[in-house]
């Protein structure tokens, strides 16, 4: 029974996304002259982001990485506004979770701070580049990036408790070590990290992509913390959220000052994805994880392919 409820929910979410695709594909929408009332689009945005919120939790990804390619592909909003909303969406999601994770030790402020400093500088650079690029080049780059993200998500392996022989000198100087209590196992977990300089270089690259495309960057932050620095997986996931909140704040100001943030897009999206995430958490125990993950990867591949072809002028 719970399994069928989970399957029905996934089917429902697929239908919501399909409905959005049909609305988007209508000739009037393609011409930019919608025959429907203005409020239909924010309502559709709320429905789709609600579904994305459910899927994002079940698939273990941030909603931001799904929002930009899918809304950019299926809705009539210009990519400038979609990227601005994407940053605010990822930011608000991270802010909602970060306080509790900080309080129970599953996020480390000290671990996130150096990465946040590097990432926020490069995210500003990324935002400036993104707002200066012509739309076709931007769509092409976004499409290629989203397809690469789908590949990374498909191929990536994670390690619950990586072996780290000792802090590297920079990690030791920055006191990147500590202890958190794992409620699942009931024991305290000691952690330390290494390869800090290489990780900071990786965070710099991730920051550029986050700012340029308005993406949440949990898909990249978690593997860098976990696989490069050797932080435990739970700490990596928690600290990624805090890192994302600082990095996206920096880039968001660039979009805000340019006028690329429309409250009518941001508000329904933020509310939709947060409500969806709450449902997703409840479904986490019963939903078929493999099917959800497959759906997310397929959505990313489709949206990425669509953006790439749009940028290349093949599928305008």
């Amino acid at each position, binding site marked *: 029974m719970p399994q069928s409820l989970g399957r029905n929910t996934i089917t429902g979410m697929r239908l919501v996304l399909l409905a959005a695709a049909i609305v988007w594909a209508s000739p009037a929408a393609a011409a930019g002259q919608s025959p429907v009332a203005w409020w239909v689009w924010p309502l559709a945005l709320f429905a789709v982001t609600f579904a994305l919120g459910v899927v994002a939790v079940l698939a273990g990804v941030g909603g931001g990485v799904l929002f930009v390619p899918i809304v950019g592909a299926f809705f009539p909003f*210009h990519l400038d506004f979609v990227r601005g909303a994407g940053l605010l969406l990822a930011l608000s999601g991270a802010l909602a979770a970060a*306080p509790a994770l900080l309080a129970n030790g599953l996020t480390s402020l000290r671990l996130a701070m150096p990465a946040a400093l590097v990432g926020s500088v490069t995210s500003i650079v990324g935002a400036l580049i993104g707002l200066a690029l012509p739309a076709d080049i931007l769509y092409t780059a976004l499409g290629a990036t989203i397809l690469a993200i789908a590949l990374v998500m498909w191929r990536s392996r994670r390690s619950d408790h990586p072996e780290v022989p000792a802090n590297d000198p920079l990690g030791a100087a920055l006191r990147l070590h500590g202890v958190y209590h794992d409620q699942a196992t009931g024991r305290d977990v000691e952690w330390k990290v290494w390869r800090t300089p290489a990780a900071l270089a990786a965070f710099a690259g991730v920051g550029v992509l986050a700012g340029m495309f308005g993406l949440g960057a949990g898909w990249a932050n978690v593997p860098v913390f976990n696989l490069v620095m050797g932080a435990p997986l739970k700490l990596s996931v928690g600290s990624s959220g805090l890192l994302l909140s600082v990095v996206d704040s920096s880039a968001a100001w660039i979009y805000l000052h340019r006028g690329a943030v429309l*409250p009518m897009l941001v508000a329904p999206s933020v*509310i939709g994805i947060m409500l969806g995430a709450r449902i997703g958490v409840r479904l986490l125990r019963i939903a078929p994880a493999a099917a959800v993950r497959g759906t997310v990867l397929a959505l990313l591949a489709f949206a990425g392919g669509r953006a790439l072809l749009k940028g290349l002028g093949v599928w305008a």
Partner: protein
Amino acid sequence: MDLKRDPQDIYARWLGAGAWLAFALSLLALFLYAGGVLAPFVPLERLPQLWGLPVERFREQTGAPTDWDWIGYLRYGDYVGLAAVCLFAVLSLVCYLRVLPAFLRHGERLQAALVAAQIVVLLAAASHLIPGAR
């Protein structure tokens, strides 16, 4: 009261309170804007003809302000909504400002320097002083 608290605890407390406030004010702002309580600067009926344009052309068509000039438009529903959205972006800066003295009290000078540098970056982004941003 915060004298002996770990900076992480202080950050968590301030971020939690700020995020709650930002969400509550965002909902209120959406009600004022979409509910028609406050008239928007850009009429809602015009939005479908405008939101498909690049941001530069959107600004040309609407006369929408840039930088911090929108502060002067807070009588309009859309800019009340924008002010609520800005709260999300300002929260990290507030939390970093709050933990800087805590790191100094704990004698963690390198972490304090990181916090100070982060504050400079966030202030530069928020104040729109970054070269090329205008």
